[in-house]
């Protein structure tokens, strides 16, 4: 019986193995279009009040009676169209993928990303709740990835990510609120009334500034902690996090514990999406570069790396600041998505969350971080109807993941864009 199941499973796998990334994206695109036009009436037909917002899980937990309807909905809107379209068009898509392969990699990647963006945009267009979750998930991806550089690729245990986030969030907010908004705390806008398109131009400046400040903050942690190898980074970074939080609580100018609100609404989906893509792209390049390899060498055996002419201290410092920079950018975006920032947000709770996302997704792996961040975020949003028990189920899940896959779901995997985008059928069919 088991053998037969295995066989059946492998047939299903074979059935779908010839589909390139483009095919899956097309399938998802069609699914989202179907949901966009027919979702409402289908939901109505299935006896649901409205379109199930997060793949039906929230509805199922709230109303057990809606379980068959929600299942049917998810099956008909997502599972069926994606699989059928992907399978039917697999030949055509492989042919297209072959064509795209001839283009430079970045061009083909951008084409795929545009398609991905439109899928996400359409999906989020159906509900602002989805939009918010999407933005927060993208930001979580950036945070997780940047911590993975330090905790995964470098193999240290850093606890200061909320601190870097806070630095980025405050710097970016002070930049945008102080310059462009009338605010009770920071007074009149220095540059009042700018057209909204200008916002999208100056906003990156604020974010980069935030990232830079976070990187400088990282230097404060890095200088004492990388003189030696040990677990001192863990407490120095923890102390740093307490210092940053306490510092912002005492800075009356920026609202103190009351926080700073009224950020302009510039963190739109395209902006967050572009930043997230940039983050994934640069971090992936970084860890695949010589520097990244040196970092892995430092992690595995510092003395040996030193002997092989790796400047271990410099490597570690650069990687640490690099991670902090992206955490700062993520923090800036976070503040502008919520349009409010307060020191209390960047405490031990946030730390536990970010750590959980990194280790859930997988160490040393870009794709793992993406899976971890999105998975954790969706899970914690989907299980919200369970109230208190949510925070029992999520930790139990994480412990199980750790026990059965101690380095996370997808650890130690290269994120090879070419490999992902390439056509999946054998040469015979391509010619």
């Amino acid at each position: 019986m088991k053998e037969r199941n295995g066989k059946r499973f492998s047939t299903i796998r074979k059935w779908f193995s010839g589909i390139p990334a483009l095919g899956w994206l097309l399938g998802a695109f069609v699914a989202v279009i179907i949901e966009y036009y027919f979702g409402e009436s289908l939901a109505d037909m299935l006896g649901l009040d409205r379109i199930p917002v997060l793949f039906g899980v929230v509805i199922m937990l709230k109303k057990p009676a809606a379980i068959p309807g929600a299942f049917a909905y998810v099956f008909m809107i997502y599972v069926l169209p994606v699989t059928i379209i992907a399978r039917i068009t697999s030949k055509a898509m492989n042919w297209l993928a072959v064509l795209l392969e001839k283009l430079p990699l970045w061009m083909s990647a951008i084409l795929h990303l545009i398609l991905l963006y439109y899928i996400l945009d359409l999906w989020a267009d159906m509900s602002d709740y989805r939009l918010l979750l999407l933005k927060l998930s993208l930001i979580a991806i950036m945070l997780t990835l940047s911590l993975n550089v330090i905790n995964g690729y470098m193999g240290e245990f850093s606890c200061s990510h909320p601190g870097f986030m806070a630095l980025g969030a405050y710097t970016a907010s002070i930049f945008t609120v102080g310059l462009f908004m009338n605010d009770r705390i920071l007074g009149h806008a220095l540059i009042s009334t700018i057209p909204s398109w200008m916002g999208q131009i100056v906003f990156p400046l604020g974010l980069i500034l935030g990232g830079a400040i976070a990187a400088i903050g990282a230097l404060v942690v890095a200088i004492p902690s990388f003189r030696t190898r040990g677990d001192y980074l863990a407490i120095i970074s923890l102390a740093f996090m307490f210092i940053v939080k306490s510092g912002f609580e005492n800075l009356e100018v920026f609202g103190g514990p009351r926080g700073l609100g009224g950020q302009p609404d510039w963190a739109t989906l395209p902006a967050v999406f572009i930043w997230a893509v940039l983050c994934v792209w640069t971090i992936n390049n970084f860890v695949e570069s010589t520097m990244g390899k040196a970092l892995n060498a430092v992690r595995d055996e510092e003395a040996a790396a030193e002997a092989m002419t790796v400047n271990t201290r410099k490597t570690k410092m650069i990687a640490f600041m690099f991670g902090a920079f992206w955490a700062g950018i993520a923090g800036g975006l976070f503040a502008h998505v919520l349009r409010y920032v307060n020191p209390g947000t960047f405490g031990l709770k946030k730390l536990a969350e970010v750590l959980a996302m990194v280790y859930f997704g997988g160490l040393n792996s870009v794709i793992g971080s993406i899976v971890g961040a999105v998975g954790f975020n969706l899970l914690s949003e989907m299980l919200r109807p369970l109230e208190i028990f949510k925070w029992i189920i999520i930790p139990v899940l994480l412990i199980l993941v750790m026990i059965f896959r101690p380095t996370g779901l997808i650890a130690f995997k290269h994120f090879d864009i070419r490999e992902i985008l390439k056509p999946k059928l054998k040469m015979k069919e391509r010619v």
Partner: protein
Amino acid sequence: MTYFFQNVINALQWGSFYALIALGYAMVYSILMLFNFAHGDIFMAGSYIGFGVATGLLYLVTSGFFSLPHWLILVLTIIISMFLTSFLGILVERIGYRPLRNAPRASAAITGLMIGIILETGNLALLGARRLGFPSLIMTKTYEMGGVFVTNKKILVVLVSLGLMLALDQFVRKTKWGMAMRAMSYDFVVVPLMGVSIDVIAPLTFAIGSALAAAGGVLYGIAYPVLDPYMGILIGWKAFVAAILGGRGSIMGAALAGFLLGFIEIFVTMIFPSTLRDLIAFSIVLVILTFRPYGFFGKPYSAKLRL
């Protein structure tokens, strides 16, 4: 001058808690090279268990099953809750750490963190959101000595924690088990080959650490009689800082670092505006670590992650 001595007394009490909790972290860290992030919540659980034991004993006494003086109830509460909480420590080791013995150390730290969250939320789900008042087992008596106010509770807290620390020190240095632990901290590849099983030492380490946390929890309940499910988080993380500040391989170093952290926090408040306490206290920690990167009593070592 009385003001200064008053604060010394205050710091002694506050430092005792950091020291007691830091000991548990340091045991696990020094001997097994692991971070036990569930420790703050084990402390919380210990306090709640102490609450249960004390209430139970008080109930039995008032309903006339037997009669005990209050100080004896206190001693029994401490001993029974230490005993019970040590099983919680063993459970944490069994669930969160043993399956991950060959995994990266950080993964085990995450399971610890998650067990901590389960303990907090489980407590919230079981007992509800109400805060519990720890039964007052001893009447507060305030003594004045030349303008310095000392309560019997403060004396009790400091004495009991010092006593426990001495006992632990003797245990680690004088007994066979303690020797096995110290051996393990040198090398956990070779020592198991000598017939000291890590499957015995690891639970024992967790159990002793948890028992100390429980004692800390009961004393904490006596000194600060408001219990809530999240009470272990902040004090736990700060004690974690103290544990590593002490230096690896030196369990007593952790206790001293715990007292030091208590003193830093209290005296920073004494000298500077109290709003800046965390800022200045942790900046001092940062500076100390810059000059003594292995902590106070730690020796340089290679913390090669088992990745």
